[in-house]
């Protein structure tokens, strides 16, 4: 099984007519994802390589029955696009947009929680979600993923998500679902949401968790793992050598005072029984040993 999406998930792409939206939307479709429509205001009635384009999410949902949306629009318009998706009847929103103001993210997150409790937002500033062989929403290159499980991946960083997929696929270890939750300060979906879903998924036998410096989500995940997780977890935390007080690319990746260091996160995870590794390759190898012993 997969989490959040499956082979029947119908997806629309908000921003399908833009350069990035077209490239990745068509790549998702070529992967086998049911990409049933695109949304660009003012371009309704046209199509992108056979995929119909609508003026609004509501129109697209009415015409196609889509339940998921891939938001691929510039930062200025992203918050409005996410809300439009929720208002239009979408229940799973993947937003890859990088550079959305934190104030917009804070308002958008809380509006979804208050007005659309059944809607899940993944991202922003994330690579998306891929359930190998079934569905790929976002910018992950499908050819580095391997179908069949038994590993679930959850990661805060885009490129490290690819690295994790690659390390496992190279060893012939498949993935049930790989979720990139994104590196921004207000992620719609967090580690615990994904860990809980993997724990509940019978096909997922072990979980790879990739974190990074900043915030306290890894520490909270460690607490949750200690109390609820029965499946083995392997983790890698990026940013051991990051200097304090500097934003390491991601808005969320900043060590403030003694808070948010890689060291503190690794210690919390190790104390929760997680296999903590020092680089992505080591994490891949450790997962190899665990899967072999299953």
């Amino acid at each position, binding site marked *: 099984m997969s989490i959040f999406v499956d082979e029947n998930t119908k997806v629309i792409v908000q921003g399908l007519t833009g350069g990035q939206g077209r490239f990745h939307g068509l790549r998702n479709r070529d992967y086998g994802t049911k990409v049933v429509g695109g949304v660009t205001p003012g371009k309704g009635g046209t199509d992108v390589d056979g995929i119909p384009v609508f003026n609004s999410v509501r129109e697209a949902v009415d015409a196609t029955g889509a339940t998921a949306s891939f938001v691929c629009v510039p930062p200025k318009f992203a918050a409005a696009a996410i809300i439009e998706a929720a208002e239009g009847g979408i229940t799973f929103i993947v937003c890859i947009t990088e550079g959305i103001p934190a104030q917009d993210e*804070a308002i958008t997150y809380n509006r979804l929680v*208050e007005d659309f409790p059944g809607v899940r937002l993944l991202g922003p500033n994330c690579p998306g979600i891929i359930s190998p062989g079934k569905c790929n929403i976002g910018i992950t290159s499908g050819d580095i993923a391997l179908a069949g499980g038994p590993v679930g991946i959850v990661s805060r960083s*885009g490129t490290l998500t690819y690295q994790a997929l690659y390390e496992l696929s190279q060893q012939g270890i498949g993935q049930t679902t790989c979720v990139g939750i994104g590196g921004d300060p207000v992620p719609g979906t967090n580690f615990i949401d994904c860990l809980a879903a993997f724990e509940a998924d019978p096909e997922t036998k072990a979980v790879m968790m990739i974190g990074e410096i900043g915030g*306290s989500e890894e520490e909270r995940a460690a607490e949750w793992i200690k109390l609820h997780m029965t499946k083995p977890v392997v983790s890698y935390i*990026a940013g051991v050598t990051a200097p304090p007080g500097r934003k390491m690319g991601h808005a969320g990746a900043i060590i403030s005072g003694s808070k948010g260091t890689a060291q503190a996160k690794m210690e919390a995870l190790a104390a929760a029984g997680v296999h903590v590794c020092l680089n992505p390759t080591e994490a891949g190898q450790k997962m190899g040993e665990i899967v072999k012993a299953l």
Partner: protein
Amino acid sequence: MDLFEYQGKQYFARYGIAVSPGDIADTVDEAAAVAERVGYPVVVKAQVKVGGRGKAGGVKLAENVDEVRMHAGNILGLDIKGHVVRRVWIERSSDIAKEYYASFTLDRQNKVHLGMLSAQGGVEIEVVAEENPDAIAFLSIDPVRGLDLETSRRWVNEAELDEPAREQAAELLVRLYECYTKGDCDLAEINPLILTPDNRVHALDAKVTLDENAAFRHPEWEEFRADEFEDPREKMAKEKGLNYIGLDGTVGIIANGAGLAMSTLDVVNQVGGAAANFLDIGGGADADVMASALEVINSDPKVKAIFVNIFGGITRVDLVAQGVIEALARVSITSPIVLRLDGTNAVEGRAILAPHLNEKLITEPTMLDAARRAVDLANA
């Protein structure tokens, strides 16, 4: 972007928050002129983006022009924790009856805004939080609803600010929240917020961090940027739109994505090297971006080897490879370059590079192999 105190005060003033009258000065003569204009006594304050200015001798009271000249002369050029003072802020000295603390920031754990207010200001809030946590009144604010005056009044009462300060403080906090939200701050902090003996409340300091992601809707931030004094490597990188942080090692790093860039630093460190920088070329990087990145790294004389670590997602490896070739044609790169390329269009990318490979342009199959090779070359 962190603002200097004087910029923070200018920003506060835009939102109607009371600050002391004052102006900036870059020379002793300018300082004297500002003090004459503002009126004595004045405070001469070092403008550096680091705490502990007072203890370092960066904040001095002056009663007359001779004292202003003496203090400005001492403070300008002073090194405070590695930050050299290039500018002072001179403001009319305020009599202080009470010192408070106020700030707004994002509560990442609960995904709401967090206000912190304390009747014990003027000292580091971390110390108050440690020694006397009950002295801080925390307020969680729903970003959708915001902060209204009624709530602010209750908050001020809860924090037990002195009676004469309460109404003014409640109004000022609503304005500070406006500044924090509409002004797109990651942090808006006043420490100390003071009550004067004649019962006026105003901001005696300003600590503001702006959210760079919101720069598109704040043309007024340009003037703050113009006044930034930064590492020349970081300045050059910023002009080219790159996400760069200068460090002290010998291995130049170029990676796509913040996580991979951080991980690259870690791995270089684990195999016995030290990174000269953090450089994330971001998503969708093309040939121009790659060429700019190599130019910035090349300008750092400490760099002995360059490690380009790319895992294509939204970034296409073929475009990155193209960028490397273009950069090599544009500038003469002094250090050897070790590349590791995987992900979207990696096969095409490697094919583009193949005819150009030599002892100064090397590819390695994995991140660890490439890190070892780059560190060997840097240490050779």
